[in-house]
Protein backbone atom coordinates (compact mmCIF):
# COMPACT_ATOMS: atom_id res chain seq x y z
CA UNK A 1 0.00 0.00 0.00
CA UNK A 2 1.40 3.36 -0.93
CA UNK A 3 1.07 6.16 1.52
CA UNK A 4 -0.77 9.11 0.15
CA UNK A 5 -0.84 12.27 2.21
CA UNK A 6 -3.64 14.76 2.07
CA UNK A 7 -2.43 17.86 0.35
CA UNK A 8 -4.11 21.10 -0.47
CA UNK A 9 -2.87 23.71 -2.84
CA UNK A 10 -4.04 27.23 -2.11
CA UNK A 11 -3.73 30.36 -4.14
CA UNK A 12 -4.13 33.78 -2.51
CA UNK A 13 -2.69 37.28 -2.87
CA UNK A 14 0.01 36.61 -0.26
CA UNK A 15 1.70 33.53 1.19
CA UNK A 16 0.26 34.29 4.64
CA UNK A 17 -3.27 34.46 3.30
CA UNK A 18 -2.82 31.30 1.27
CA UNK A 19 -1.66 29.40 4.37
CA UNK A 20 -4.47 30.82 6.51
CA UNK A 21 -7.10 29.98 3.89
CA UNK A 22 -5.71 26.49 3.46
CA UNK A 23 -5.74 25.78 7.19
CA UNK A 24 -9.29 27.08 7.45
CA UNK A 25 -10.28 24.84 4.56
CA UNK A 26 -8.71 21.81 6.21
CA UNK A 27 -9.91 22.75 9.67
CA UNK A 28 -6.39 22.23 11.02
CA UNK A 29 -3.77 24.30 12.80
CA UNK A 30 -0.35 25.14 11.47
CA UNK A 31 1.26 22.38 13.54
CA UNK A 32 -0.72 19.73 11.68
CA UNK A 33 0.70 20.48 8.27
CA UNK A 34 3.94 21.11 6.44
CA UNK A 35 3.97 24.13 4.18
CA UNK A 36 5.73 24.27 0.88
CA UNK A 37 5.81 27.51 -1.06
CA UNK A 38 5.28 26.80 -4.73
CA UNK A 39 5.19 30.39 -5.85
CA UNK A 40 5.88 33.46 -3.75
CA UNK A 41 3.76 35.54 -6.04
CA UNK A 42 4.54 39.00 -7.24
CA UNK A 43 2.90 42.33 -6.67
CA UNK A 44 3.92 43.40 -10.15
CA UNK A 45 4.28 46.97 -11.16
CA UNK A 46 1.06 48.94 -11.18
CA UNK A 47 -0.85 45.67 -11.33
CA UNK A 48 1.02 44.48 -14.39
CA UNK A 49 2.68 41.12 -13.98
CA UNK A 50 0.83 40.53 -10.72
CA UNK A 51 0.87 36.94 -9.58
CA UNK A 52 -0.79 35.33 -6.58
CA UNK A 53 1.15 33.25 -4.10
CA UNK A 54 0.75 29.48 -4.25
CA UNK A 55 1.39 27.15 -1.32
CA UNK A 56 1.07 23.41 -0.86
CA UNK A 57 -0.09 22.20 2.56
CA UNK A 58 0.57 18.57 3.39
CA UNK A 59 -1.25 17.05 6.35
CA UNK A 60 1.17 15.33 8.72
CA UNK A 61 -1.05 12.47 9.88
CA UNK A 62 -1.10 9.46 7.61
CA UNK A 63 -4.68 8.36 7.96
CA UNK A 64 -6.02 10.71 5.31
CA UNK A 65 -5.92 9.76 1.71
CA UNK A 66 -7.20 12.15 -0.86
CA UNK A 67 -6.23 13.41 -4.23
CA UNK A 68 -4.64 16.85 -3.99
CA UNK A 69 -6.01 20.05 -5.48
CA UNK A 70 -9.50 18.73 -6.03
CA UNK A 71 -11.24 21.12 -3.73
CA UNK A 72 -9.59 24.26 -5.00
CA UNK A 73 -10.67 23.58 -8.54
CA UNK A 74 -14.12 22.10 -8.08
CA UNK A 75 -15.60 23.04 -4.74
CA UNK A 76 -19.08 21.78 -5.56
CA UNK A 77 -20.34 18.33 -6.36
CA UNK A 78 -16.93 16.77 -5.80
CA UNK A 79 -16.22 14.47 -2.97
CA UNK A 80 -12.83 14.92 -1.44
CA UNK A 81 -12.13 12.52 1.39
CA UNK A 82 -9.59 14.73 3.11
CA UNK A 83 -10.39 15.56 6.69
CA UNK A 84 -11.95 19.00 7.00
CA UNK A 85 -13.16 18.85 3.46
CA UNK A 86 -15.59 15.99 3.66
CA UNK A 87 -17.76 17.87 6.12
CA UNK A 88 -17.75 20.98 3.95
CA UNK A 89 -18.51 18.83 0.94
CA UNK A 90 -21.38 17.08 2.62
CA UNK A 91 -22.84 20.47 3.53
CA UNK A 92 -22.49 21.95 0.06
CA UNK A 93 -23.68 18.83 -1.75
CA UNK A 94 -26.71 18.57 0.54
CA UNK A 95 -27.61 22.21 0.02
CA UNK A 96 -27.14 22.00 -3.74
CA UNK A 97 -29.19 18.79 -4.00
CA UNK A 98 -32.15 20.11 -2.02
CA UNK A 99 -32.00 23.39 -3.94
CA UNK A 100 -32.04 21.54 -7.23
CA UNK A 101 -34.91 19.27 -6.20
CA UNK A 102 -37.25 22.01 -5.03
CA UNK A 103 -36.43 24.22 -7.98
CA UNK A 104 -37.36 21.40 -10.34
CA UNK A 105 -40.60 21.01 -8.43
CA UNK A 106 -41.36 24.65 -9.18
CA UNK A 107 -40.95 25.74 -5.56
CA UNK A 108 -38.83 28.76 -4.82
CA UNK A 109 -37.45 29.02 -1.34
CA UNK A 110 -34.30 29.63 0.63
CA UNK A 111 -32.18 26.53 1.30
CA UNK A 112 -29.48 26.54 3.94
CA UNK A 113 -27.43 23.55 5.06
CA UNK A 114 -25.47 23.57 8.30
CA UNK A 115 -23.54 21.03 10.31
CA UNK A 116 -25.58 19.57 13.16
CA UNK A 117 -22.95 20.12 15.85
CA UNK A 118 -24.80 18.13 18.49
CA UNK A 119 -25.36 15.09 16.33
CA UNK A 120 -22.01 15.00 14.54
CA UNK A 121 -18.74 13.27 15.19
CA UNK A 122 -15.63 14.00 13.12
CA UNK A 123 -15.99 10.80 11.13
CA UNK A 124 -19.74 10.86 11.00
CA UNK A 125 -21.07 14.31 10.25
CA UNK A 126 -24.77 15.05 10.30
CA UNK A 127 -26.23 17.90 8.30
CA UNK A 128 -29.41 19.90 8.79
CA UNK A 129 -31.00 21.47 5.76
CA UNK A 130 -33.52 24.21 6.46
CA UNK A 131 -35.95 25.34 3.81
CA UNK A 132 -37.57 28.70 4.45
CA UNK A 133 -39.97 30.80 2.43
CA UNK A 134 -43.64 31.44 2.09
CA UNK A 135 -46.41 28.98 1.32
CA UNK A 136 -44.30 25.85 1.77
CA UNK A 137 -47.06 23.59 3.11
CA UNK A 138 -47.10 21.93 -0.32
CA UNK A 139 -43.57 20.68 0.45
CA UNK A 140 -44.63 19.18 3.78
CA UNK A 141 -47.74 17.38 2.58
CA UNK A 142 -50.26 15.30 4.46
CA UNK A 143 -48.68 13.75 7.56
CA UNK A 144 -45.38 15.22 6.30
CA UNK A 145 -45.20 12.53 3.64
CA UNK A 146 -43.83 14.95 1.05
CA UNK A 147 -41.18 16.21 3.47
CA UNK A 148 -40.21 12.61 4.24
CA UNK A 149 -40.03 11.82 0.52
CA UNK A 150 -37.86 14.86 -0.11
CA UNK A 151 -35.54 13.85 2.73
CA UNK A 152 -35.38 10.25 1.56
CA UNK A 153 -34.55 11.16 -2.04
CA UNK A 154 -32.00 13.74 -0.86
CA UNK A 155 -30.24 11.14 1.30
CA UNK A 156 -30.08 8.73 -1.63
CA UNK A 157 -28.68 11.32 -4.03
CA UNK A 158 -26.15 12.73 -1.55
CA UNK A 159 -25.21 9.20 -0.46
CA UNK A 160 -24.58 8.17 -4.05
CA UNK A 161 -22.51 11.31 -4.60
CA UNK A 162 -20.25 10.86 -1.57
CA UNK A 163 -20.11 7.08 -1.80
CA UNK A 164 -21.62 6.15 1.55
CA UNK A 165 -24.68 6.80 3.67
CA UNK A 166 -25.42 10.43 4.34
CA UNK A 167 -26.99 11.80 7.47
CA UNK A 168 -29.06 14.64 6.12
CA UNK A 169 -32.12 15.96 7.94
CA UNK A 170 -34.49 18.37 6.28
CA UNK A 171 -36.83 20.77 8.01
CA UNK A 172 -39.25 23.25 6.50
CA UNK A 173 -40.08 26.45 8.37
CA UNK A 174 -39.39 24.78 11.71
CA UNK A 175 -42.12 22.22 11.02
CA UNK A 176 -40.41 19.30 12.76
CA UNK A 177 -39.80 21.17 16.01
CA UNK A 178 -43.43 22.33 16.14
CA UNK A 179 -44.70 18.89 15.21
CA UNK A 180 -42.59 17.31 17.93
CA UNK A 181 -44.14 19.60 20.53
CA UNK A 182 -47.70 19.04 19.36
CA UNK A 183 -47.19 15.26 19.23
CA UNK A 184 -46.00 15.34 22.82
CA UNK A 185 -49.05 17.31 23.88
CA UNK A 186 -51.33 14.98 21.93
CA UNK A 187 -49.69 11.89 23.44
CA UNK A 188 -50.18 13.19 26.95
CA UNK A 189 -53.83 14.11 26.32
CA UNK A 190 -54.57 10.71 24.86
CA UNK A 191 -52.81 8.99 27.72
CA UNK A 192 -55.01 10.84 30.23
CA UNK A 193 -58.05 9.89 28.21
CA UNK A 194 -56.98 6.24 28.24
CA UNK A 195 -56.50 6.33 32.01
CA UNK A 196 -59.80 8.13 32.67
CA UNK A 197 -61.87 5.96 30.38
CA UNK A 198 -60.02 2.72 31.03
CA UNK A 199 -60.03 2.07 27.28
CA UNK A 200 -57.37 1.83 24.60
CA UNK A 201 -56.79 4.99 22.60
CA UNK A 202 -55.56 4.71 19.02
CA UNK A 203 -53.73 7.65 17.47
CA UNK A 204 -53.78 8.62 13.81
CA UNK A 205 -51.38 6.67 11.58
CA UNK A 206 -47.90 8.20 11.67
CA UNK A 207 -44.49 7.63 10.12
CA UNK A 208 -41.93 5.71 12.19
CA UNK A 209 -40.06 8.74 13.53
CA UNK A 210 -43.28 10.26 14.86
CA UNK A 211 -44.43 7.01 16.45
CA UNK A 212 -41.09 6.89 18.17
CA UNK A 213 -41.66 10.39 19.58
CA UNK A 214 -45.00 9.29 21.01
CA UNK A 215 -43.50 6.17 22.61
CA UNK A 216 -40.73 8.33 24.09
CA UNK A 217 -43.16 10.95 25.39
CA UNK A 218 -45.11 8.30 27.33
CA UNK A 219 -42.18 6.21 28.47
CA UNK A 220 -42.41 7.61 31.99
CA UNK A 221 -46.19 7.36 32.25
CA UNK A 222 -46.58 4.37 34.52
CA UNK A 223 -50.35 4.07 34.07
CA UNK A 224 -50.16 3.33 30.35
CA UNK A 225 -48.33 1.09 27.89
CA UNK A 226 -47.85 2.04 24.24
CA UNK A 227 -47.49 -0.14 21.19
CA UNK A 228 -47.56 0.25 17.43
CA UNK A 229 -50.06 -1.76 15.42
CA UNK A 230 -50.87 -2.19 11.73
CA UNK A 231 -48.77 -1.95 8.62
CA UNK A 232 -47.13 1.13 7.13
CA UNK A 233 -48.37 3.59 6.02
CA UNK A 234 -51.35 2.90 8.30
CA UNK A 235 -49.26 1.87 11.29
CA UNK A 236 -50.29 3.73 14.41
CA UNK A 237 -49.65 4.00 18.13
CA UNK A 238 -52.16 2.55 20.56
CA UNK A 239 -52.15 3.72 24.17
CA UNK A 240 -53.29 0.99 26.54
CA UNK A 241 -54.26 1.76 30.16
CA UNK A 242 -52.55 -0.59 32.59
CA UNK A 243 -55.10 -2.62 34.51
Amino acid at each position, binding site marked *: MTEERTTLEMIAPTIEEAIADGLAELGLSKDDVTVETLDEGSKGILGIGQRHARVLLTVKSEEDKAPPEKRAQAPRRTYDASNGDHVENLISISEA*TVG*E*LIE*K*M*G*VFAEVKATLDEEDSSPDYPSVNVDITGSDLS*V*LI*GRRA*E*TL*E*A*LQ*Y*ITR*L*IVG*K*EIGHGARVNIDIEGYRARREQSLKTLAEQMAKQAINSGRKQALEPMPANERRLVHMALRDFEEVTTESVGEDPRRKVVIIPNA
Partner: protein
Amino acid sequence: MQEIIEYIARSLVDDPTQVRVSQRRQGSTSNVRLEVAKQDMGRVIGRGGKVANAMRLLLRVAASRDNNSRVRLDIVEPE
Protein backbone atom coordinates in the same frame (compact mmCIF):
# COMPACT_ATOMS: atom_id res chain seq x y z
CA MET B 1 -42.75 19.14 -14.45
CA GLN B 2 -41.03 15.93 -15.58
CA GLU B 3 -37.65 17.58 -14.92
CA ILE B 4 -37.88 16.53 -11.28
CA ILE B 5 -38.08 12.87 -12.30
CA GLU B 6 -35.29 13.23 -14.81
CA TYR B 7 -33.03 14.86 -12.21
CA ILE B 8 -33.71 12.23 -9.54
CA ALA B 9 -33.34 9.31 -11.95
CA ARG B 10 -30.10 10.61 -13.44
CA SER B 11 -28.70 11.16 -9.96
CA LEU B 12 -29.53 7.65 -8.75
CA VAL B 13 -28.75 5.35 -11.65
CA ASP B 14 -25.40 3.94 -12.67
CA ASP B 15 -26.05 4.66 -16.33
CA PRO B 16 -27.56 8.15 -16.74
CA THR B 17 -27.26 7.96 -20.54
CA GLN B 18 -30.13 5.43 -20.55
CA VAL B 19 -32.54 7.70 -18.68
CA ARG B 20 -35.52 8.80 -20.78
CA VAL B 21 -38.46 10.76 -19.45
CA SER B 22 -41.55 11.66 -21.39
CA GLN B 23 -44.81 13.30 -20.47
CA ARG B 24 -48.21 12.94 -22.07
CA ARG B 25 -51.34 14.86 -21.15
CA GLN B 26 -54.71 13.14 -21.35
CA GLY B 27 -57.53 15.37 -20.24
CA SER B 28 -56.85 16.33 -16.64
CA THR B 29 -54.21 13.65 -16.16
CA SER B 30 -50.52 13.84 -17.03
CA ASN B 31 -48.71 10.58 -17.64
CA VAL B 32 -45.00 10.69 -16.94
CA ARG B 33 -43.00 7.75 -18.21
CA LEU B 34 -39.53 7.00 -16.90
CA GLU B 35 -37.27 4.59 -18.71
CA VAL B 36 -33.95 3.44 -17.25
CA ALA B 37 -31.48 0.70 -18.08
CA LYS B 38 -32.59 -2.73 -16.93
CA GLN B 39 -29.87 -2.98 -14.29
CA ASP B 40 -30.94 0.38 -12.84
CA MET B 41 -34.60 -0.50 -12.34
CA GLY B 42 -34.00 -1.39 -8.72
CA ARG B 43 -32.47 2.00 -7.99
CA VAL B 44 -35.48 3.98 -9.16
CA ILE B 45 -38.04 1.61 -7.70
CA GLY B 46 -36.42 0.77 -4.39
CA ARG B 47 -37.32 -1.85 -1.84
CA GLY B 48 -41.07 -2.15 -1.69
CA GLY B 49 -41.34 0.64 -4.24
CA LYS B 50 -40.07 3.19 -1.73
CA VAL B 51 -38.04 5.26 -4.19
CA ALA B 52 -40.82 5.19 -6.80
CA ASN B 53 -43.40 6.31 -4.25
CA ALA B 54 -41.18 9.14 -3.02
CA MET B 55 -40.70 10.26 -6.63
CA ARG B 56 -44.49 10.21 -7.13
CA LEU B 57 -45.01 12.50 -4.14
CA LEU B 58 -42.44 14.99 -5.41
CA LEU B 59 -43.85 14.77 -8.92
CA ARG B 60 -47.28 15.58 -7.52
CA VAL B 61 -45.91 18.82 -6.07
CA ALA B 62 -44.33 19.66 -9.43
CA ALA B 63 -47.65 18.98 -11.18
CA SER B 64 -49.59 21.13 -8.73
CA ARG B 65 -47.18 23.96 -9.44
CA ASP B 66 -47.19 23.43 -13.16
CA ASN B 67 -50.61 22.78 -14.68
CA ASN B 68 -52.47 21.46 -11.68
CA SER B 69 -53.12 18.12 -13.37
CA ARG B 70 -53.39 14.74 -11.75
CA VAL B 71 -50.20 12.90 -12.44
CA ARG B 72 -49.17 9.31 -12.97
CA LEU B 73 -45.65 7.93 -13.01
CA ASP B 74 -44.83 4.74 -14.87
CA ILE B 75 -41.39 3.21 -14.69
CA VAL B 76 -40.43 0.95 -17.58
CA GLU B 77 -37.50 -0.98 -18.91
CA PRO B 78 -36.23 -0.22 -22.40
CA GLU B 79 -37.92 -2.40 -25.03
